[in-house]
């Protein structure tokens, strides 16, 4: 795992140490969706009755057709939006009921790769990654060391001084990945983190997330890329039309998909058969 040059792992402070509820056990689920509804338009909910339990240290793919609500699901966790009905608990706390002054402390426990990257174009690559650590008040020496390491892990070693505007789409995406992992968060929310990467690099990034996952980090990995999903045996959460269909053990054991055969790209295997 990424550590400072002095070998000390700097974790962002534990989430709501004071406010955590009494039933906090080490293996309490990190993220729980309880009957979550989200309406952007009155007549047609984007999410309808989502129930999910994500255990501490899980690795989940989130998939589903365009407009299914994958990004919305993740945005509800980091309080870009709030649920219209139901509840989302992160480490036992109801995310929707956080005061707005507490939201930054929620987000410091998350590593987020945004679907549209959200890198600042007129900053350098280094500054874009370092900002996540500066927010945590980390001393500059440590920031330098950890940013350099994160950039190396996403294959951008030595590009720190470049303006982000001049990077290729895939390079910008990797900057976003580096920013998400550099803080060593408890939960990584990666929204389509390989959409602009070639198959090689996509596997590399997936492997990177798996390495981080191996140190105990929980990962939610939203992607369309069935060839990526098919390569690994992680839990799959498939969204369609705002509802959830899930498989515990990856695409290989998905109903209708033969063992160890990559999925057909006709997609029927991932379609929700009945509402």
């Amino acid at each position, binding site marked *: 795992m990424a550590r400072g040059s002095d070998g000390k792992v700097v974790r*962002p402070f534990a989430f709501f140490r004071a406010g955590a509820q009494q039933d906090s056990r080490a293996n309490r689920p990190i993220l729980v969706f309880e009957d979550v509804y989200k309406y952007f338009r009155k007549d047609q909910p984007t999410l309808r009755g989502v129930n999910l339990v994500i255990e501490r240290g899980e690795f989940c793919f989130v998939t589903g057709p365009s407009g299914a609500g994958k990004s919305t699901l993740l945005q509800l966790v*980091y309080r*870009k939006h709030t649920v219209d009905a139901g509840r989302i608990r992160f480490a036992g706390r109801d995310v929707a009921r956080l005061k*707005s*002054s507490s939201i*930054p*402390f*929620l*987000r*410091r426990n*998350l590593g*987020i790769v*945004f679907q549209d990257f*959200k*890198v*600042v*174009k*007129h*900053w350098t690559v280094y*500054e*874009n990654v370092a*900002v*996540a650590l*500066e*927010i*945590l*008040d980390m*001393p*500059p020496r440590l920031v330098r060391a950890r940013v350099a390491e994160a950039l190396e892990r996403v294959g951008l070693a030595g590009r720190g001084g470049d303006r982000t505007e001049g990077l290729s789409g895939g390079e910008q995406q990797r900057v976003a990945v580096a*920013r998400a992992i550099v803080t060593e968060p408890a939960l990584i929310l990666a929204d389509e983190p390989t959409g602009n990467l070639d198959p090689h690099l996509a596997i590399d990034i997936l492997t990177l997330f798996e390495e981080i996952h191996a140190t105990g980090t929980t990962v939610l990995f939203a992607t369309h890329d069935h060839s990526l999903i098919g390569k690994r045996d992680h839990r799959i959460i498939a969204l369609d039309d705002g509802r959830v269909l899930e498989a515990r053990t990856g695409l290989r054991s998905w109903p209708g998909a033969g063992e160890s055969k990559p999925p057909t790209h006709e997609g029927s295997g991932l379609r929700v058969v009945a509402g």
Partner: protein
Amino acid sequence: MELKTLIGRAKRGLREELRLYLVAISSLSVAFLCVAGALLALTNLSALAERWGESARMTVYLRDGAQAADVAQLRVVLESLPEVRAVEELTAEDARALFLQHAEVSADLAALPPEVFPPSLELSLATGTDPSRIDAMAARVAQLRAVEDVETYRGWFDRLESLLSAGRGLAGALALLVALCVLAVIGNTIRLAVARRRDEIEVLKLCGATDAFVRGPFVVEGTFQGFAAAALAVLVLFFGFLALRGELDASLAALTGIRAAFLQPWMLVALIFGGAFIGAMGSALSLRRYLTV
């Protein structure tokens, strides 16, 4: 927050938007120049007012053939009044000489007999004595034995007063207008500058920055802008003042009898630090609506 990080982030903003900053500072300094100019005008106007206020006077005309002893006693009485600063005696001859000296129409009046000009005591009144007290005093003094008549120059005084108050009113209205202008310019400049950096603020907030963290460098930048703009305005005003002083002294000062003065040092300090403060406040306030990410 690490101070080093804060300064670093503020410098990053400065570097990125250098051009925008120069534009903002120049437009702010024009606004501050207006304020400083209005202040300068007010300073000189009140110096003028004070000068004129000092020169409030009263003339006590003495009865024909008043005894020297009576006059001397009158003088002592008048000098003991708190409103009176100085008393000067004017004989009929003095008065005639003075009149001829001041009057432009010299020719025929030179023949005027001295009787036309009664001897008088010229009183200089204390600064800021208000007109009603002068009237009351005049009424009392008129009762005294050696006194023929009392002239309070009330008409002149009133005219001066109303001219001054008109001047003050105009300067005040101008200052108000300018203050409005400054507020509008600062508010807009900072609001628009911040709007340009929406994406940056959004990224910070989504990465878990507190509002204070986001504000930090913007407030530093705003403070610096306000400070630089106010300092620039003061400098420009000073050199403008030096350049125009000869002109001013020749025309205006010759008329009013005072010399043009620059702003007091404490005003300069107040302007510059006020500028820095307004810059900081403007930044902090105009950020508010962008912090709800």
